[in-house]
């Protein structure tokens, strides 16, 4: 017996609609969800917006020197900063929306935005 002959016309329609649903679910689930990003500011102005789903390093020039910021596994941190106290470096990884690390002497900040922001700002 032919398997194909068991399919009625409507079955093809339902299978087709199912395929469309599956295809649509990929971008909806895997791209819409990655709207989370880290905003890097220098001197109060947006310097870069980093997609948290992509691991990378960036270097931000400031008045004192270069601040290095890294994204790794949906987290972001300040790797190095020329400031005297290193507060923003020692703050470590930021992973929640609203969290911010501010390197005040070098006028650089990085903040996680996107998703549902539970806080206006988080700092330690």
């Amino acid at each position, binding site marked *: 017996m032919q398997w194909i002959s*068991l399919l*009625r016309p*409507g079955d093809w329609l*339902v299978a087709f609609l199912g*395929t469309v649903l*599956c295809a649509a679910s990929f971008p909806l689930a895997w791209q819409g*969800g990655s709207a989370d990003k880290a905003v890097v500011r220098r001197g109060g102005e947006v310097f870069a917006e980093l997609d948290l789903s992509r691991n990378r390093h960036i270097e931000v020039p400031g008045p004192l020197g270069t601040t290095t910021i890294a994204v790794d596994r949906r987290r972001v941190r300040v790797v190095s900063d020329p400031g005297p106290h290193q507060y923003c470096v020692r703050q470590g990884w930021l992973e929640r929306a609203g969290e911010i690390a501010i390197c005040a002497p070098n006028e650089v900040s990085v903040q996680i935005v996107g998703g549902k922001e539970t806080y206006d700002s988080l700092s330690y």
Partner: protein
Amino acid sequence: MTRSVTRLITTPEDHRIARLAAAAIGLALIDAAIPLPLPGVKPGLSNIVTLIVLARYGWGTAAWVCVLRVIAGGILLGQLLSPGFFMSLTGAMFSLLVLAGAGRLPRRWFGPVSWSILAAFAHIGGQLLLARLWLIPHNGLFYLVPIFAVAALAFGIINGLIAARLLASPSFMNTGAHHA
């Protein structure tokens, strides 16, 4: 010897439900034994029985067979009243709701494959809803939606085809459904 005062009167319909539920439970056990990489992705072989029952005896019998299978399967697999059991029950309820509508579609155009696909999507939809509300209250769950959707479509088509083939085979329907 005193005769028992309680006597359970069973109808042929009860016997039929019990036989079909037994077949579904057997398939549910086989289902549970198949190793698959991701929790939540299962072939759902026992739904083949539900589809055949729906086609032959109507929605009421199918609902009985399906719910009995979920409860007895839960007892046999030792997961009665566990989260996994409630996931199964929710999936079954959503599928049955959708099948109540799908069974009314014109048979000339829509067969067991349509029912199976629609029920599979309803099944995973209901389970995702329960999981999001109760078990994993985090939107990260929805990253898995595409995988579940593809699995639902694939297994929906396969189970539907098996049910359609069994329904179309006279030898099986005479020996299998009436006596098994």
